[in-house]
Structure formats: C-alpha cells, structure tokens
C-alpha cells in the first residue's frame, strides 16, 4: 500500500483584483508562502504541478523561472474549474508512486473583469450560411438551441432538482446565497465581504433564473499553493511541522460517466456522487464524521444539488438539510464558511487548492474569527464542467 500523503504547507492569496501582478507573480507569491509555511525550499521539492487556464502553455516553467529552476519535472495541468484539485492530485500521485517525497501544487487565475464566461460571442453575420461543427450548424447555437452559458446550465440543474423533489423555489436558492455572503464577512481573504439581505440578492440583476448576479461565482484574481509530503519523510521533520501537517485521507478525481441525456444537459451529479463515495471509502470516514465542507457553489443552484451529491443529507433531502440551518456556520455541518465562490471568489485554477486551504486552516485551528471550533475532519469539493470532479478529505494531525 502506498504511503499516506500530508499537507505540509499551504497558502492562498487574498482573492480580488491585482492590477500590478500577473499570473506568474501571484503564483510565485503563493508558492513561496506555501513553502515558507511548510518550512522547506525549492531544493526539497521533487515535483511541481501547476494550473493556469487562461495563461501561457508553459505556466509551470514560467513559475520556476521566478522561484527556482531545480530541474524537477513540471506537469502543466488543466481541468476546467477542477484544475487546482487536479494539480494537487498529480503531486499526491507522484508521492504515492514513490517518485519523490515532496511536491508542490500551484493554481492561479487572473479573472477580474472577465464578465460572463460564455466563450461564444456571436460572429458577424452577413455571408451565406455555412455548415460548421459537429451539429452541422449554420450559426452559433447558444441562445438559439438552449443555453451554453454556465449560469444557464447550472440554473437548469438546480431547477431539475427542485422539480424532482419539490420545496425549492427562487427564494430558497437566494437564501443559500444569503448564507454564503454572510459567511464571507469573517473571511479577510474573500473578494467580497459584504453581507447581503435576501431582498438585495433577489432584486440583484437576473442572470439566468433563478440565479441573480449575487448568486453567481465572482470572477477575480487569486492563487493558491500547497506543499505535500509523504508520511515517511514527514516523520523525519520537526515536531512543529508534524503538528501542523494535515493528512489527506482521500484524494479522488472523477470524470462524468455516460448517462442518458448527459450530452444534452451536463450531468454534474453522477461524477460528484462517485467521487464522494470513493473518497469516503478511501478515508474510512462517512459524511456524518465531517466537521466542515467547502463545496463548489459556482451558483446557488449548484450548492443545493451538491448537499445531496456529497451525501450530506438523505437522498432528495437537500432542501430540508438547508432549511434545518445545518450548513450555516453555527449549524450541524457548516458548508462554505469561507463565503464560497459566490463571495470569496472563483479564480478558476486556484479554487481547487484554495478550498483545501480553507479546510486545512480550520483543522490547524488557525482560522481566526471564523474558526469552526474543534474541527478535525473536513471535505473539499470542486467540479469543472465537461466534466471533472475533485474531492479531498482532510484530517487533523493526531500529534
């Protein structure tokens, strides 16, 4: 059996707008801080995995040129919104494979002012109709045959759950957002730390019903990085390093298995359920053992379905789970105490490491005013549409 892998050091930058820093600057800031947190240098690192979707192809190498060119293998990874989790997974796998005993994973995005990520602006029309693409289409299909926008896709996913199980309406989705915005007021690293009333959220600009602007993830700049270490190596390090280390009890990545209709509307449920089930099995931990969860609330409508997908409630019971107050920070199982992607922000490639940072910081007892007291076990989840799902279960060190 491959050895356990631990987080030795981890960091996220404040999320927000950085006019004077590019992706490499932000990545370097986070990587250097993660190594300082771990008490190691580039000389100790045996593998680098790096993600930056909107940047250059050789982002990892560009990063090395700022923080240390030591000749180690670099894996430039990309997996939509699960890119950060994928970078972590690559470092975990390298250590488990015995190729090295320490790895560095970095995720960065510069996304301030990116607007709606449709990637499908209508071309200038004027010429004769020409068939293109896999549907032989004569015009871009977004808006003509349903929607290809993220807010629209995740709205339909939430509405489908609402129709199947009942009890969820516009107001309920807005209340999920109200929770996350309230949580963000305690997080100094969140891009937005403003409490919003239910009324403000519901009256904000409608993007794709039932998601208003306040219920959508916030585009911003940010980076996160983690230093991972094999358990054998960890036991040779100082007492303080061992005490602050956080165990990765499960590290899982899935893609979406074929389901009827999944190429018409992406099925974000099945791969999340499979990732969660595998993670609970790997960790020997059940959802009832969790003290906090950071899940991928790219839209308020997504958070609802993931309560169910991650097994935080009975099947079909996501509405009741939310209405019970469970996912509020004072509730039975706090969800997104960071403020979530709706207020903390969503610099795509950083997200899958930043949510692990949030959970790890609580397990270390270092979360300050937003600390979940006595947190010992937590789960971090991300999903990239297409799809890729990453789930990490973390545990506090016993020493």
């Amino acid at each position: 059996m491959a050895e356990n892998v631990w987080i030795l050091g981890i960091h996220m930058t404040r999320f927000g707008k950085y006019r004077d820093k590019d992706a490499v600057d932000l990545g370097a800031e986070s990587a250097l801080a993660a190594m300082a947190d771990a008490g190691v240098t580039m000389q100790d690192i045996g593998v680098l995995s790096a993600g930056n979707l909107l940047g250059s192809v050789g982002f990892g190498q560009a990063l090395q040129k700022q923080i240390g060119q030591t000749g180690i293998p670099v894996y430039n990874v990309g997996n939509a919104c699960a890119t950060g989790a994928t970078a972590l997974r690559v470092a975990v796998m390298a250590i488990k494979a015995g190729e090295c005993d320490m790895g560095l994973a970095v995720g960065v995005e510069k996304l301030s002012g990116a607007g709606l990520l449709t990637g499908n602006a209508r071309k200038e029309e004027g010429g004769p109709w020409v068939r293109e693409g896999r549907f032989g289409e004569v015009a871009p299909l977004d808006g003509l045959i349903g929607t290809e926008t993220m807010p629209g896709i995740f709205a339909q996913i939430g509405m489908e759950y609402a129709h199947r199980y009942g009890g969820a309406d516009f107001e309920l989705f807005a209340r999920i957002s109200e929770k996350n915005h309230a949580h963000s007021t305690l997080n100094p690293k969140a891009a937005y730390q403003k409490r919003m009333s239910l009324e403000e959220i519901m009256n904000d600009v409608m993007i794709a019903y039932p998601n208003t602007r306040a219920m959508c993830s916030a585009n911003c700049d940010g980076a996160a990085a983690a230093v991972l270490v094999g358990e054998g190596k960890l036991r040779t390090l100082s007492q303080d390093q061992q005490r602050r280390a956080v165990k990765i009890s499960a590290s899982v990545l899935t893609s979406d298995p074929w389901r009827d209709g999944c190429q018409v509307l992406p099925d974000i449920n099945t791969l999340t359920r499979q990732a969660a089930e595998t993670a609970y099995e790997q960790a020997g931990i059940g959802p009832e053992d969790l003290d906090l969860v950071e899940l991928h609330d790219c839209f308020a409508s997504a958070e609802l379905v993931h309560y169910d997908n991650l097994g935080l409630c009975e099947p079909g019971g996501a509405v009741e789970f939310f209405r019970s107050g469970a996912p509020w920070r004072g509730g039975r199982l706090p969800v997104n105490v960071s403020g979530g992607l709706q207020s903390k922000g969503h610099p795509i490639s950083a997200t899958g490491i930043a949510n692990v940072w949030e959970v790890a910081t609580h397990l270390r007892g270092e979360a300050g005013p937003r600390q979940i007291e006595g947190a010992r076990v937590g789960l971090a989840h991300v999903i990239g549409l297409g799809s890729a799902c990453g789930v990490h279960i973390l545990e506090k060190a016993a020493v």
Partner: protein
Amino acid sequence: MDRVPLVDYLVLDDEPHLVAHECRGCGARYFDRRCACANCSGQEFRDVEVQRVGTLRTFTIVAFAAEGVKVPYVAGVIDCGGTAVRGNVVNVPPDPDQVRSGMKVRLTTVSVGVDPTGVEAVGFGFEPID
C-alpha cells in the same frame, strides 16, 4: 424561398422533426456527428425520428448572455418520449410564472434569418400544448 436547417439533425419537411443517431448496440441517442458510442463504444448507428411532443424536464430564463444573443429567452431540456433534447421554449412569455417543469410541449420551427443570397435558416423550439 430556399431554406436550410439551423442544424443537420433538424429535418424540414411537411412535418418538421428531429433525427437522432441511435447506437445499434445499446440504443443511446445522439445529435452530433459521432465517432463511437459514449456508452458502449459501438461504432454502428442508425438514424431515428424523435417524437415531436414531449415534457419540459427543466428550464431557465436566460436574462444575460453573450453579445448578439437575444434575451430574455427560455432555455430548457425536453424529454421527447425518452430522448433528451435541448431547445428553447417559445411562444410563451419568459416569465417563471408562465413556464413550469413538467409542462407538455411540441416541436415548432423558428426563423433564424435570411442570408444575402435569399436563403432562410430555420431553427426549432418547443411551444406549450394548451
């Protein structure tokens, strides 16, 4: 006036309808050009007509979209006798009180525009059945 379908899975005859590529191995249906089946990896397909009436499985009302996309509009997924179809819900106000999951709808055609040679592109949508 000459007409072309917006997509090649829309057939414009007296009774416009959609055609899916059905896997001969497992029956999975697709609308795009296929390499193989995503379910069973089979490489043999046959074209089948998709039922023209269905039930709205889920929807959203898109109010904000890329430049050039007319908003608001109702986007949804329709269950046409077991085949999932993406499409707009048309001939209904884009109002959450007027659209509901589970409503019965039927296929209809929608004009997309006319090119400089006078050819009209025709798309499709689904309208409520009263």
